C-alpha cells in the first residue's frame, strides 16, 4: 500500500513539475505593470462599432474584460470548458448556436481564448461578432487576396480578339466573369454544370453548333469556368469553337465541298441591281463576301453584331438612315451576314432600305 501511495505522490509531483514547465515554456505569459491598450467592439448587424482605451495593471485580456465589465456592458461565461466565453457586449447578446465574439489581437486572429491572451502595452484588441461559418472557412484568406489575371476572348469568325487585365478578389473564373459582366458584355445562365456563357462581347453563341473553349495558361481547361480556381498571373482564354460533327461524316464532307450560290445586291436609289454567282467553300455568307470583296467593291467593319457593310458596288451606306436588308431565298434573314450558313444553291439578296 505504501508503494501505491508513493507512486501516487510521485505522479502528483510530476503533474506539478510538468504544469510549471508548461507555464514557463509553452503557456501564455503576461507582463506585469501598467499598460495602455485599446479595445474595439464590432457588431456589424447592429451598427455597433465602438473603441475604448484602457489603462490596466492586469496581465491577461480576460482580467481586463472582467474589470471593465460595466463599461463594456459585457456578459460572459467564466466556467466554460474553453475558458472565458464572451456571450454579450455593449448590450448585444450572442445567439450561441450560430455566432460568437471573435477576438483579434493587432489585426490577427487570437491564438487563445480571452483568459489566455497576455496584455501587452500598446496592443489593439477587437471583439467582432462573427457567424460560425466565417470561422471555419479555410478559403477566407485566399478570397481576400488580390489577383491580377489576363482574360482573352477570341471569336475568329467575327475577327474578335480582345484582351483584358482584371484585378480581382474572386476565387473562381465564373465569379470574375459575373463581376466583369458589363465589360465583357457577357450574358450567361446558371446550369447544372455551372456558369454557361451564352453571349460575350456582343456575340451570341449558337449553342447547337458552337461553344467557348477555355484555355488556362495556353492549355485546355479541365473544367468549366465555375470550376477554375484563379491564381495570380494566370492567363485565361475563351475561344469560340465549333462542335466537331460526331456521326454525320457526310455532312462534314459537304461543308468543305464547293457550293454555288447566287448573290444579288439591290440599291434602289441608285438603280443598282446586280446578280453574282459565286463558287465558295466558306461556311458563312460573311466569309464568302470577304473573299469576294473586290468583285463586290466592298468595304465593311466588324462590329459586336458581326459584319457590317459600309460600302458596296461603289455605294456608300448612310448608317443613320439606311441599312442593307438581307434576304435568304426570298425570305427575311434571321441573323446578320456572319450568322448565315451557306447552303448550296441558296440565293442571298442585299436590299438597301430606309430605317
Amino acid at each position, binding site marked *: 500500500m505504501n508503494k*501505491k501511495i508513493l*507512486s*501516487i505522490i510521485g*505522479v*502528483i509531483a*510530476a*503533474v506539478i513539475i*510538468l*504544469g510549471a514547465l*508548461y507555464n514557463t515554456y*509553452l*503557456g501564455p505569459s503576461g507582463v506585469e505593470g501598467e499598460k495602455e491598450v485599446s479595445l474595439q467592439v464590432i457588431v456589424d448587424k447592429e451598427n455597433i462599432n465602438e473603441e475604448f482605451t484602457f489603462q490596466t495593471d492586469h496581465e491577461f485580456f480576460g482580467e481586463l474584460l472582467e474589470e471593465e465589465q460595466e463599461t463594456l456592458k459585457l456578459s460572459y461565461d467564466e466556467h466554460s*470548458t474553453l475558458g472565458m466565453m464572451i456571450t454579450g457586449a455593449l448590450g448585444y447578446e450572442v445567439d450561441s448556436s450560430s455566432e460568437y465574439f471573435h477576438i483579434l489581437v493587432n489585426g490577427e486572429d487570437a*491564438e*487563445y481564448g480571452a483568459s*489566455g491572451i497576455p496584455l501587452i502595452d500598446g496592443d489593439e484588441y477587437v471583439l467582432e461578432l462573427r457567424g460560425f461559418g466565417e470561422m*471555419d472557412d*479555410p478559403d477566407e484568406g485566399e478570397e481576400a487576396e488580390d489577383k491580377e489575371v489576363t482574360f482573352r476572348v477570341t471569336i475568329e469568325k467575327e475577327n474578335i480578339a480582345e484582351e483584358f487585365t482584371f484585378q480581382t478578389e474572386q476565387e473562381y473564373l465564373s465569379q470574375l466573369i459575373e463581376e466583369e459582366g458589363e465589360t465583357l458584355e457577357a450574358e450567361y445562365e446558371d446550369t447544372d454544370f455551372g456558369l454557361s456563357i451564352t453571349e460575350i462581347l456582343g456575340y451570341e453563341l449558337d449553342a447547337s453548333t458552337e461553344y467557348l473553349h477555355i484555355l488556362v495558361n495556353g492549355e485546355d481547361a479541365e473544367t468549366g469556368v465555375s470550376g477554375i480556381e484563379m491564381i495570380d498571373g494566370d492567363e485565361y482564354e475563351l475561344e469560340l469553337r465549333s462542335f466537331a460533327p460526331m456521326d454525320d461524316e457526310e455532312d462534314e464532307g459537304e461543308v468543305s465541298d464547293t457550293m454555288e450560290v447566287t448573290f444579288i445586291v439591290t440599291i434602289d436609289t441608285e438603280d443598282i441591281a446586280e446578280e453574282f454567282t459565286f463558287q465558295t467553300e466558306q461556311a458563312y455568307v460573311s466569309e464568302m463576301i470577304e473573299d469576294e470583296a473586290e468583285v463586290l467593291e466592298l468595304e465593311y467593319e466588324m462590329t459586336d453584331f458581326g459584319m457590317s457593310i459600309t460600302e458596296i458596288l461603289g455605294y456608300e451606306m448612310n448608317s443613320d438612315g439606311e441599312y442593307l436588308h438581307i434576304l435568304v431565298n426570298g425570305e427575311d434573314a434571321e441573323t446578320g451576314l456572319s450568322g448565315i450558313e451557306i447552303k448550296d444553291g441558296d440565293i442571298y439578296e442585299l436590299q438597301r432600305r430606309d430605317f
Partner: protein
Amino acid sequence: MNSNVETFNGMKVQDLVLISILSASLTAGKLALSFVPNVEVVSLLFMVYTVALGVKRTLLISVIFATTEIFLYGFSTWVLGYYLIWPILILATGVLKGKVKSEYGFAIISGIFGLSFGFFFAVFESFFYGIAYGMAYWARGIPLDILHGASNYIIAIILFNPLVKIFSSQLKQYYIR
C-alpha cells in the same frame, strides 16, 4: 426462457443484455464525473471490461458507448474519434492482458492513454481542419492532458484490481459460459 439460446452471430441473450448494461454504466460513469475536467472512469472501466470479459464484447460496448455520445452531444468530429480511440485502448489492454500481471502495468497504460488523448484528437482533427489547427488544439490542451494522464494513473492504481476482482466474481456467479 433459456438465456443460453443463440441469437445473432453466436451471441447469447445474456451477452446482449450485459453489453447494453455495461455501455450504460460507461455513459453514467462519464456523466457522473463530467464536472471535473479530464478526470474520468471510462478508461478504467474499458480496461476492466477487457480483462474480465474479453476484447470482442468490450469492442461492442465501445461502439454503443460512442453512439450514445452522439445522441447526447450531437454529431461532431470528436465523436467520430471516439469510435477509434476506445477500441485502441481495448486492443492495447487485450494485447497486454497476458503479459502484465500487476495493476501498475495497467495504471501506466491508462496514464499514457490519458496523456496522449489530446494528441490523438489533434491528429484526428488535423484531417478535418488542417495541421495548424491540430497543433494549436494539442498545445492548448497539454495541461488538461497532463491532468488526464495523472488522474487515469491514480484511479487505475486504486480501483483496477478491486474492480476486476468484483466484476470477475460476479461474472462467474451469473454469467453462463
